[in-house]
């Protein structure tokens, strides 16, 4: 039913339906047993090219609105104990293409990651500042084009300058890395994921890598 409403672009109806179910059961019940399985299924369909970016966008909006409602629910907050790690996320300086980043936020958050989303056009120094402030495990940087992907080098330079390389892992993503995978290492990234739904697996790999190094 939820998937059908998302397919039809009926965002408000989908959120309303989730809300009704959560009143009958709980936010936790609906998120874990309905919303997250639907998000996973839609994400997989998207990866296989079976649904459009617009479908992904609507599902992201539905999840975003429902998570915000859940976040205001005390019972839900107490019950949510799954925590994988902390990720500082943002589009690099001069990059104004937020869709991929927003989807990473939705999917990674639903997989238990604490996400600090800084938004678009973020200078390298700000990523580092927020990573230190939040004791982040990973900085995840998104760039759509070659021109902006090159700015990610500055994040690596800042990590080196602050002796954080290896302690805070650098995940990179965006359309340009799918077209030119060699860019990941060229700009100093520790890893990438092809899709937003794959970001959680990437974060897990990077976290293990970080732990094995220390």
């Amino acid at each position: 039913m939820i998937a059908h409403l998302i397919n039809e672009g009926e965002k408000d109806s989908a959120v309303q339906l989730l809300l009704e179910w959560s009143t009958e059961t709980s936010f936790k019940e609906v998120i874990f047993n309905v919303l997250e399985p639907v998000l996973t299924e839609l994400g997989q369909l998207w990866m296989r090219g079976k649904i459009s970016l617009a479908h992904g966008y609507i599902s992201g909006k539905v999840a975003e609105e429902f998570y915000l409602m859940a976040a205001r629910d005390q019972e839900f907050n107490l019950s949510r104990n799954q925590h994988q790690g902390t990720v500082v996320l943002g589009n690099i300086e001069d990059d104004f293409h937020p869709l991929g980043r927003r989807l990473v936020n939705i999917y990674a958050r639903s997989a238990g990651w604490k996400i600090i989303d800084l938004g678009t056009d973020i200078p390298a120094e700000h990523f580092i500042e927020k990573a230190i402030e939040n004791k982040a495990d990973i900085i995840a940087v998104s760039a759509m084009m070659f021109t902006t992907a090159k700015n990610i080098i500055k994040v690596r330079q800042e990590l080196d300058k602050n002796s954080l390389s290896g302690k805070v892992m650098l995940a990179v993503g965006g359309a340009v890395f799918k077209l030119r995978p060699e860019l990941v290492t060229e700009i100093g990234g520790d890893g990438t994921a092809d899709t937003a739904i794959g970001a959680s697996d990437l974060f897990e790999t990077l976290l293990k890598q970080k732990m094995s190094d220390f």
Partner: protein
Amino acid sequence: MNSLERILAAVSGDDTDYQPFTLLLSLYGASLIKSDTTAHYRDAALWYKGQRAVIDTFDPDIVITPFSFPIEAEAFGSELVFLDHYGPNVKKPIITELSQIDQLTVPDLELSPSIQFFLKCTNFLSDDFRGNKAIASPIHSPADIPALLMGIEMWIDTLLFHPKEVEKIMEKTVEHFVQFGNELIESGATFLVVPVNFTTPMIITEKIFNHLLPYLANAFRQIKGPIVIHNGGSKLMPFIHYFAKLPNVIAFVLEPTESFDEARQIIGDQVVLMGNIDGPGLLNYTKEKAQEITLKILNNRKADKHFIFATSNADIPYDTPIETIQTVVDTIRNFNKY
């Protein structure tokens, strides 16, 4: 049989002396004459010098006027960033709030340097090749330009939740498309090439597509020449049947993974199909790989008289070895179609 006659024969389904072809070498002209890529996209005479080198080297049947959508977006006010060996990109969207759509103005064809660049390049090609080669002029679909002007996320959000703003911006982009498209034809283009990157099943839902369809029909109907729909790096199927019914559409350039046979089943035998070797992919292909893919496509379309071999997706990259491109051309010329 000259190149134009060869292309017209493919359109009408008549025999040709050899398989007609085209390659997207708009950027590669700069590579052949070793010119600076910023100047290449600013100086029409220099761009044309590069295209002359392309024509002298590869002699394609269709020559293509500049393929750069960011420059078309620049005509609306977008700021560009230029990179060595690459085409320019839009630096940041000019629309960041929906209310800004009201201030968006349709580019003045006479006064916009960006538009004048396209028109002058078309004139140069036409002066030398009208009647001898087909001249294709790329122009952004009116339903795709908003994605460049406001970014893809904001455009999808607008399409989903703000129908009045869609109407406002589409009125302006349709007006621009009709004015600019007809001016390109007036300047010598044989047909327009309309990439539809953001109007495909990979990007939007069928419901959204159907909302945009009347705007596309209205725009295409007013164009005084034929239109080729280009995949733009996205898949056309299963929306291809909608495009096929639009006014003036005579051909489709398929994406490299799409099947010509499947397209034929959907849209029939009379429409021209083009493609589908991956243009950007040529950078990394060996000569043997390029030949293998070219032959596979040619053999698949051997009996198809409404077929024009073409590169799909974006421009062939600047650093592509000339031998790789020459292998594709030689394979086409040596192929015994009949």
